[in-house]
């Protein structure tokens, strides 16, 4: 299975965080097992601008530790694009350090109906993955 599966409630939680950080980029971690998201970690953006994000290192370490302790994986890293389409920027591609994780981008050009896309980014190669919301 290649789709990223997420309950509607978790997807809404991610979008709520992205809207709350608008007009700056938001970021966070989608945790779970396999390709299934079972927990959302909204994270603080240490570089809060409309075109960049950088997770707070301490916060990120705390989440990674919690995931290890609970046997969960970092299924995806999400961030928002407040003013541009939900496609990885050159910077997103160059900073994609976790090939085992997917990268989810929440495009907020239409804040009422955000575009949510998921990608694998491995060695600079971007490939879209289906982002499937279940009820």
């Amino acid at each position, binding site marked *: *299975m290649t*789709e990223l*599966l997420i*309950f*509607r*409630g*978790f997807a*809404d*939680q991610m979008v709520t965080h992205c809207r709350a950080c608008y007009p700056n980029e938001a970021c966070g971690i989608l945790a779970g*097992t396999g390709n*299934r998201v*079972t927990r959302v970690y909204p994270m603080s953006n240490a570089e809060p601008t409309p075109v960049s994000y950088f997770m707070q290192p301490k916060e990120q370490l705390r989440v990674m530790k919690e995931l290890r302790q609970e046997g969960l994986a970092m299924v995806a890293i999400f961030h928002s694009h407040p003013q541009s389409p939900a496609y990885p920027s050159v910077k997103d591609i160059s900073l994609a350090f976790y090939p085992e994780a997917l990268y989810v981008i929440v495009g907020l050009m239409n804040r009422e109906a955000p575009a949510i896309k998921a990608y694998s980014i491995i060695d600079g190669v971007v490939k879209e993955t*289906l982002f*499937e*919301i*279940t*009820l």
Partner: protein
Amino acid sequence: MAFAHTEGKRIMEFTEEQLQRYSRHIILPEVGGRGQAKIINAKVVIIGAGGLGCPVGYYLTAAGVGTIGLIDNDVVEISNLQRQIAHSVHTIGMLKVESAEKTFKALNPDVNIIAHKVRISKDNIIDIIKDYDIVVDGSDNFPTRYLVNDACVMAKKPLVSGAILKFEGQVTTIIPGEGHCYRCLFEEPPPAGLVPSCQEAGVLGVLTGVVGSLQATEVLKLILGKGEPLKNSLLVYDALKTIFRRVKVPKNPNCAVCGEKPTITELIDYNEGYCSLP
């Protein structure tokens, strides 16, 4: 009078009225007299006489499913009428199972409707579903969905599960011992606080018709043994984009309820904090 046969053995007599009523089924090679006899002999129970339960029950009644059980303890309210098509202004305040029974009986008096005026729980579900061939989940809350899933796996009853919210719907068919179950998809329900309230989130009324009709179709395919049910699949419908997607859901050998070494062997009620039937 006409007869349906299986392997040379007469299995059912059709009255003239039945032949006329079900003629559009009987002329289908995939159904025929034998298939219609299977439908008439089938026993299906529907959990929830609300948004999904109404169209599922309505179409299964029209199809001639011989015994239809309805489980619900709620009463009809005016806010239900935007989508719950078996009820009307004349049945407001009546128990939904009785209101639906009245409507279904008017459509097809031959169908035996059994009204279970109870809230489904871990204490009664196994006892109720044991008398039926197929279970339909028409609820829209996680406690019921997981309870019904687990009960069907334990009782080895095929389950056709549907869900709706806002402009989205989904359907899946769980055949215990053969395909995935709901816990293969997500082992645990999401935390109660994260789930949007059914009343608050809203739902486009006609979505119940789309998803309920898909569920009824799955039930008839299971009864007839025809086609490919949504086994190991989740059909997702996006009404705003008018898109259907079929997501593969492989059976998880380590699933807590249907896996090789199940860890869930007793039913669980996750009830507190979630919303009620749609």
